[in-house]
């Protein structure tokens, strides 16, 4: 029980950490918040842009997590589902490592449609997939404790967890990206925009591989 609580705390910590990680990545949109405030010459455009980016990111997380929450009520297949998910996440990471080209269609999105852009950017980079092994780990611990409940209850519990995971993740992403955007907009200035912009492509892809491997490992060895 104590071990479960520690794992649970660690997994929620991972949800928050992944949010911060996505948030600081310029590819998830904080430079758009800076540019919105500068283009409109209005500081209030910055939180507005962040909110739109958050909405798109949240939807992308939910779109990936929900199918897994629906699937996960098949308790007897728990391990297999978690291993399958881990392989999928590793696969996405390997794909991004091999295909280093940027998704061109993102450039076709109208600059004002920030929520759509954020949704597509998260989807194209497998941002939602990064959460799947963590989310399934949380659900698995929940399943142990509530194993006697009806499948229906279990599923709605998992769906609730999916929304909470997506919300906590998106909130920490928005806070992290928002801090960088605000610091650059208010204090540091645009010169730092390109200075803070690091090429995270390889690190990002490796993170997916790592998270996927962790998912498989924890499925096989218990949480």
């Amino acid at each position, binding site marked *: 029980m104590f071990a479960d609580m520690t794992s649970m705390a660690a997994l929620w910590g991972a949800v928050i950490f992944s949010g911060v990680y996505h948030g600081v990545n310029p590819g998830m949109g904080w430079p758009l918040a800076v540019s919105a405030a500068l283009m409109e010459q209005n500081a209030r455009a910055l939180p507005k842009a962040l909110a739109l980016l958050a909405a798109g990111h949240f939807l992308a997380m939910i779109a990936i997590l929900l199918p897994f929450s629906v699937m996960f009520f098949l308790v007897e297949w728990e391990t297999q589902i978690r291993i399958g998910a881990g392989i999928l996440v590793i696969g996405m990471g390997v794909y991004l490592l091999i295909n280093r080209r940027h998704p061109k269609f993102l450039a076709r999105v109208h600059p004002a449609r920030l929520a759509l852009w954020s949704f597509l950017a998260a989807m194209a980079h497998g941002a939602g997939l990064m959460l799947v092994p963590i989310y399934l780990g949380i659900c698995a611990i929940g399943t142990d404790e509530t194993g006697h409940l009806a499948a229906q209850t279990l599923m709605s519990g998992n769906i609730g967890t999916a929304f909470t995971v997506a919300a906590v993740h998106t909130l920490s992403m928005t806070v992290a990206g928002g801090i960088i955007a605000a610091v650059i907009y208010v204090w540091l200035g*645009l010169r730092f925009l390109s200075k803070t912009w690091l090429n995270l*492509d390889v690190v990002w892809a490796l993170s997916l591989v790592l998270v996927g491997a962790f998912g498989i490992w924890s499925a096989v060895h218990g949480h």
Partner: protein
Amino acid sequence: MNLRPDPTFHASPKLAMQAPVENYAFTVMLSPDGAQSDGIAVVDLKPGSDTYGQIVHQVIVPNKGDEFHHFGWNACSSSLSPLSGHAFLERRYLIVPGIRSSRIYVIDVKEPLKAHIHKTIEPEELFAKTGYSRPHTIHCGPEGIYVSCLGGGGADGTDGPPGIFIMDCETFEIIGQYEMDRGPQDKHYDFWWNLPQDYMVSSEWGLPPQFEDGIVAEDLLSNKYGHSIHFWDLRARKNIQTIDLGENHQMALEIRPAHDPKKSYGFCGVVVDTTNLQGSIFTWWRDDDGKWQAKKTITIDPRPEKAENLPPLLQGFEAVPPLVTDIDLSLDDKYLYVACWGLGEMHQYDVSDPMNPVLAGKVEVGGIARGTAHPNGKPFAYGPQMVEISRDGKRVYWTNSLYSTWDDQFYPDDEGGQMVMADVGENGGLTLNPDFYIDFPKGMRSHQIRLEGGDCSTDSFCYPSV
């Protein structure tokens, strides 16, 4: 791919102005009759260098008859666009099209003194993949490198309308046509855009039979060259509005939007008004209702001249038309430089108020029936033509050739390629620098100039100057 954004990418025009000054220029060298191969001259601009103001390297291509004209970078400050996230590209390759051959060279200039050809795209590939010919203006934008073409398909380039194609900015593979709905656009020349505001503007010179063998006087006098500018929804790839500047405003060429992406206006130069031989500049802008407007804000008068001093083409008019053939806007959107290739003058206008430009400086060099010498006493063939401004706005470089066959019609007795530089005064004003004068190798003419690290007609910025 770099781990950090290329240091020559700048978020705003203001940051680009504060960046280190240019160390090199890359200038087109062209053989007007195709007797020699064309090339790119690398000019040393390092302050204090022993070879300052000299051609220190040449990239000569293996083919003849390409006729180099305009060219551009594989990547510029537009790579910092938060939407497309190509921040880690290198500004390393020059995309150099042959306007006559339709061949495209990709030249690696990472080490300017060892610049060399990286890739060649043969004309057949361009024709097959795009249906266009005579590639011209290069800009790096969303989804890749955009290239405008002056010709459509077929031997004389009139089989189908000309347009823009997109090229991959890493592999230099041609992706295909840009346009989804071109509306009434049936000629092409220049284009540029405002990336955050998502619009593009394009202009019109004429179809290949109207320029390749020289200017067609009958077409000009019957107003058959281009006289419209087109406004596009950039990402939807649709022509949303066409403004006819009036059919007497023949040859609407360079499009220069304000560099600050917050602004929704720009300029277009018109070579000649057939009713009075004036050259003119139109200011275009988006009004409060979102409609595009254009108004003539600068006119430059012709100079009366005795017929006997004029080339046959102009004798009947007894005047020298200004021939506004290139314009360029400084990065602070303050000064617009206007090349009057016929008069032999470079004008500098203060366009702080884009609707009311004020002449702030002027230099005379070359010119039809005038041929003003350079301050160092050496001759300047033709007139001031392709103009490029340093990022900091303090130096203005220009060359002298317009287009091989047109040079010969307007200046039948001139020959040679020169590149000169003028210093900009603290409060405007323009003075030719007597020490900067490059005479191109014999038989070579010169055209567009590109500055190392970007200049005032290459880079598109995604964040406003603050």
